[in-house]
Structure formats: structure tokens, C-alpha cells
């Protein structure tokens, strides 16, 4: 019993120290923006983020020319995937769970930037996009 308790405490402490597991609610948009901005060495710009998100691109897959293909231009409302499934609103003002899970944000930036731009987004671009999205 004691032994188990001690081991559990140890594991818990280790988990906190190493940031493991990267579970839901392990971060915030502010933290992420700061992280990406530091990595890029640039100031995040919501205006640049908006232009990138709303713009039409040609480098990626023809089915997804823009972030708005799925998320739509009204980010306070639900979007729709190409397979017809609803996507929760992107604006944290209506969907507070947004940008609070670092693994989820990383996974979708990787996928969606590759689909739309044909390449991964740079840290600067991620900081810009989040700077804009987090203010909605």
C-alpha cells in the first residue's frame, strides 16, 4: 500500500516535470503563441495570420485550397469536413477547449498545412495564425 502510494507520487512528479502525457488542457493559446514566436524569432501578427487562413493557396492538394474549405469564413460557427462531419467552431470565445492541447494543435497544423499549402507551416506562421484565431 505505502509502496504503491510512493511509486504513484513519484510517477506523478515525473509526469509533471517531463510534461508527460501531453494530454488535453496541457497548454493555452498564449503559451503556444509565445513558444512558436520564440522558436521563429519573430513577433506574431494576427493580420498575417488572418491573411494566411482566409487566403486561397495552390501548393497543396486540389481538394483543399484554403483553411476555410473546412473551417469556413465564419469561425464562430461550426465548419464541415469534406466527408460531411461537423467541425466545432474555431473561435475560443464560443469553444473554450480550443488550443489547449499541444499534441492536438501540432497534429492538425502538420496535417492541415500539408493539405492546404503542400508543406508544414513554419513556427512564425503558426504563431501568426494562433494570434489571430485566439482573439476571435
Amino acid at each position: 500500500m505505502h509502496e504503491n502510494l510512493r511509486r504513484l507520487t513519484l510517477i506523478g512528479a515525473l509526469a509533471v516535470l517531463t510534461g508527460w502525457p501531453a494530454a488535453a488542457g496541457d497548454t493555452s493559446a498564449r503559451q503556444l503563441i509565445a513558444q512558436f514566436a520564440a522558436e521563429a524569432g519573430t513577433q506574431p501578427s494576427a493580420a498575417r495570420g488572418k491573411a494566411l487562413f482566409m487566403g486561397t493557396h495552390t501548393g497543396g492538394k486540389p481538394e483543399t485550397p484554403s483553411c476555410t474549405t473546412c473551417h469556413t469564413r465564419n469561425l464562430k460557427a461550426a465548419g464541415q469536413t469534406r466527408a460531411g462531419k461537423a467541425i466545432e467552431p474555431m473561435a475560443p470565445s464560443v469553444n473554450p477547449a480550443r488550443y489547449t492541447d499541444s499534441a492536438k494543435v501540432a497534429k492538425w497544423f502538420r496535417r492541415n498545412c500539408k493539405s492546404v499549402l503542400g508543406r508544414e507551416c513554419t513556427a512564425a506562421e503558426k504563431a501568426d495564425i494562433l494570434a489571430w484565431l485566439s482573439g476571435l
Partner: protein
Amino acid sequence: MDKKRAEAAQGRTRRAPQPVWDGFVRLFHWGLVASIAVAAVTGFLLGPSFIPVHVVAASLAVALVLARIIWGFAGGGYARFAGFVAGPGRLLRYARDVLARREARHVGHNPLGGAMVLALMAAVLVAGLTGWAFLGAGAKLGPFAFVLAFAASPVLAELHEAVAFAILALVALHVAGVVFTSRREGENLVRAMVTGEKEVGPQDIVPPQREPRTGAALGVGLALALVLGAAIAAPVFLPVPGAPVAEIDPTVRAECTDCHMFYHPSLLPAGDWRRIMATLDDHYGEDASLDADTAAEITAWLTAHAAESADTRASKVFRLDPAGGVTRITETPFWKARHAGIGDAAFRSAEVGSRANCAACHADAESGWFNPFFAEIEG
């Protein structure tokens, strides 16, 4: 008048009409007419989306026949099998008498009519049996789901259809017999089956009168209904061999349902899943890439529960063939044929959005069953 002439011909005088067909016999007769008519129209003429109506109507016909069999042992004199079932000898003699125009008049069923009653009831029972066997093998519904493999369903479908044609032939023969006897005896037998009354003459053959045992009949009927109801519902409560895996791996559900419904692993063979999982970075026009560990875990689960592990229709009909241009379930010949009647607008409607959004129309899509009973066109 026809009737007068017939009476004169047979040297008979008639008395006042007497009750012959009791309430249940008439209910049975016209209930069977209605249920077989609905079953025939839905089975022969309408498409697979009417299967549920067909099954309900046909099962009602079977239930009526079973009730009639009980009544054949418990009902009054005219209803009892003992009163109208004739052996081959009597049957042949009666047929010869009919040809020689010297047959005796039976107030209940005459021997040939009685044989027709038995033949029709037997045919309905065999049709019900083959029908439920087909449902058991093909859709894993009803008691036969436990014993019949999907592979048996084409043979059962043929058999069921043959029996259904036999019923049509028997119905035609039965109607011809009724018309013939009505004219020969100068009495409208169809009306008699409505009013329940027939004229009884002094020389007519009347079965021995028996006291109906209604209570016993109801008891036996109720017990039988419970047993059959339980047998039909059994696959809902008991594990069926070849059922698609019911417990869905949480990682697969989490990672594979962000963009679309959950595609059950039993829809595609393991080889197709392996290829889909190996090309997630170019997944139907999107990047759906995963880290290597998660991808390996998902691949293992999908291939373990792939089509090869199930025995449903949906596990047999979808095979992808990228070399042949079939990269999606919705491009397979079976899918295209079964959904040919659905317009483009229905797929593009707000409720559906995509052909691949099976769950919008198939309420049980995510379970892998794709039971035709739960298919409904949305939008």
C-alpha cells in the same frame, strides 16, 4: 336462375343459412389474403427497401397459419382438421365423383378444398422458414443467424423465391376451385367466407359438431408466440457467430473520426486497411498522417477485425482495387448498384454531405452491420 337450376339438378331443397365459418376462420382467411398480397407485392415487385414491410407481412401470414393449425385441433366442427382432411383414397374418389358430376355436397371444406387448405398452409410455413433462414444467413437476423453462414444466402434466396411462386400457383388454383364449386353448387362461397353462413340441405355432408376449446387454443397460441418471439429476437441478446466486432478500440475511434464517421473494420479486408494506413499522408485528398506508433497500433486493430473476421453482407461486398480505379467503398460495383436509385442531391444535402457519410442514412453504420432495415434516405 343459376342457383335454382343447380338445386334442381342435384334434387335438393335448401334450408335457412346456418353459421359454418366461425369468426376466427374468417379473420384467418381474409387476414391471410391481405398479408400474402402485401408480401407478394413487396417481395416480387418492390425493391430491397421494402424488405421490412415484406418481412412483417409475411411473418403475419405465418402467425395466422400457426394460429389456424392450433384452431384445427381446438376449434368447432367445421374448423377442425378431423372434419375436412381426407386421405388419398377419399380424395381420389371425390375427384372422380366431381368429374362424373355426382359428388356429394360438403357444407364445410370438401376433400379437394381441404387438401388445398393444407397445401397453402404448408407452403406459407415453408416460405416463412426459408425467408427467415435467408434473413438469418444474409442479415444475421432471427434464430437462423446462429446456424447459417452468409454463404448459404444465395441458395436460400432461390429456394424462398421458388416457394413464393408455388404459393402464387396454389392461390390461383384455390380461386379457380372456389369459382368452380360456387357455380356447381349455386352458392357464392366468397360471400359465405364473409358472412360465415352457408345453406345446409338434408343430404349435405356435415362434420361432427365439436365444442370449441377457446381457452386451450389461446394458451397454446400465447406460448408459441412467446417462443417464436424470443427466437426472432435472440440475436439482439446473444452473441452471433461472425458478428462484426462490437467493442471499438478507443484510439482508433479517437484518431479516425475527426474528419468522418467511424468506418467499421469489417467493411474492408486486412490488405485494404494496410494500404490505407500506409498512405495516410495522402488520404483521399488530405493529409491524415499520424505518428508511427499510433499508426501501427491502429493498423494492428483494424487488420485483426477486418472483413475476414466477419460474416455479414457488408463484410463480403466491398473490396478496393486501386489499380482498377476503385479506391473507395463508394466506387465498388456493389455500392454503386445498391445506391443507384438515390439522386445526387440527396448525397449533397446538408444532412448527408458526402456519399461516404454512410451513417447519415444507415442508423447502424458504425456497428458494421448495415442492416437493410435501418437504411433510410436522408435529405
